[in-house]
């Protein structure tokens, strides 16, 4: 009985299966087939034998990778930058959202929001040009119009590591804050104004109202978004770390992340074994982090869990 009805069902639904076909084939090719290519991390790759024909070498690629200082540097950079982006990004997004939400004039609010979203719309390459216009050592704005009039020595930004953590964090926030404040803004719009009126009547200061009403109302969103970002902590924005420092070798100790390392190994140094090992390391740890963070969300608030 059950079987027959299934056949009837499938017959009824066959046009839907045909509709899904292009996307399913695409996902199979673009997303599933490369997963099998992860075996490259355990092989000594050569072009003639290809991905699956190349000889197995066990864990040698990983031994080489973790014997170098690079493995530590790229892991540290990836994680620390992500942490900095999460903390600084959340604080600035909430701040911006609160300010935007408090703007009375609808028109002004819209103009402000349009302008803070501008950087989100452009590619990282263009961002690298913008940064270069400020930072370039001989023609840059900072050296020519800020440091020189002040009588300070020009700085050669592209060869001094100490500035880069700040530059990269600043650019990341500059580019992303207009986007990330949208979620908080939507949230703030849903808070009952009655709370604020009652608190104001009781003499609560603006700061007290922020910490006692606004923050608790935003808390679920903050937690969910933070946990989601922790799930992506082993991945970095390749464009930010590849384009903005303009591939300056002198900066690698503070700008190299797992993603740029994999790219350089694959495309520039021809070190495919180590590149594949680093990629495998990223995929696996990244997957564990996603599963782990999802388990945490499930415990905190089931409805926000991904699965």
């Amino acid at each position, binding site marked *: 009985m059950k079987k027959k009805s299934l056949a009837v069902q499938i017959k009824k639904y066959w046009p839907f299966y045909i509709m899904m076909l292009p996307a399913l084939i695409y*996902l199979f090719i673009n997303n*599933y087939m490369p997963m099998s290519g992860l075996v490259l991390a355990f092989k000594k790759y050569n072009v003639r034998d290809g991905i699956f024909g190349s000889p197995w070498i066990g864990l040698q690629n990983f031994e080489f990778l973790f014997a170098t200082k690079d493995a530590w540097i790229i892991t540290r950079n990836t994680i620390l930058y992500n942490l900095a982006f999460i903390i600084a990004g959340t604080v600035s997004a909430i701040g911006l959202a609160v300010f935007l939400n408090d703007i009375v004039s609808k028109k002004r609010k819209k103009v402000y929001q349009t302008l803070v979203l501008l950087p989100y719309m452009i590619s990282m390459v263009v961002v690298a040009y*913008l940064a270069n216009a400020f930072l370039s050592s001989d023609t840059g704005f900072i050296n020519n119009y800020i440091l020189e009039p002040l009588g300070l020595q020009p700085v050669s930004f592209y060869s001094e590591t100490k500035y880069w953590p700040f530059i990269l964090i600043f650019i990341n926030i500059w580019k992303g804050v207009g986007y990330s404040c949208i979620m908080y803004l939507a949230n703030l719009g849903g808070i009952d104004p009655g709370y604020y009126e009652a608190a104001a009547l009781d003499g609560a200061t603006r700061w007290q109202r922020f910490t006692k009403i606004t923050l608790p109302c935003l808390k679920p969103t903050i937690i969910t978004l933070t946990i989601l970002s922790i799930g992506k902590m082993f991945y970095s924005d390749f464009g930010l770390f590849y384009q903005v420092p303009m591939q300056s070798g002198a900066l690698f100790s503070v700008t190299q992340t797992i993603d740029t390392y994999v790219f350089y190994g694959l495309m520039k140094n021809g070190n495919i074994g180590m590149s594949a090992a680093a990629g495998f390391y990223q*995929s696996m740890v990244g997957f564990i982090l996603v599963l782990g963070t999802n388990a945490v969300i499930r415990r905190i608030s089931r409805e926000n869990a991904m699965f």
Partner: protein
Amino acid sequence: MVENRKGYDIFINVILILICICCVAPFVLLIASSFTAESSLIKDGYFFIPKEFSTEAYKFLLGDNSIFRAYGVTILLTASGTAINLLITTMIAYPLSKQDMPGRSFFNFFVFFTMLFAGGLVPTYMMWTQIFHIKNTFAALLFPSLLTNGFTIMMMRSYFQQNIPPEVLESARIDGANEFYILFKIVMPMSLPILATVGLMAGLMYWNDWNNNLYYITEPGLNSIQGLLNRMLTNAQYLKQTATMGNVGAASVPTTAVRMAVAVLGAVPILCIYPFFQKYFVKGMTMGAVKG
């Protein structure tokens, strides 16, 4: 209380104006530099007002074929990529919105798992170049980012579930319409907001894409605008090396200003168009962040 309100109002307006200046100023610097004479740029550096106004950079670009070609590639890529993306996204999202389709949970998981786990750059690159041989073809710009992951599919699926009343589809079915007709003639016209959101996100992604150019293209004729920018960033002489020279001698290429002018050409169209579509972007962002 009233006075307090006014003071705070001024305070937040000032802060927001400062933030907005911070967001816009770099673009002003970029545009101003592109209109500055090469000699002045080299002598005085980039400044917010051209010290010596000049359109030589743009004149050079007008005399050079590669910029028109790059624009052509970008436009063709953005148009075809967005269209194909929208089409196949809709065609999988609609069936997935059917609660009682046999195998629905399997297909859902098939899409969803791509958001959790990825093979990464090395295997993806190997597969596209060695199995599908897309290196130095237009397909290399189009295919590797056609559906980046299952995210937009999930978004569109929830939209269909929440916004298309089943009765409408049922009555069309009774009238003898087939499922493809229903999707293209009834469901899609009823879903214009989500189509706009997904389409704009895909269009923005394609317009701004330089990664595929970096990975798969070495042939200058296939450079998109962003690809060209990527090549010129660390190799200021790139245009000079690859350009098919028109009316400008190779020696007099205003390299510094030209780089800025190309960056302007890559960014400005988006900046001009996007305020008109802002609400769709914002909508997509809130929807997307709510539920994966």
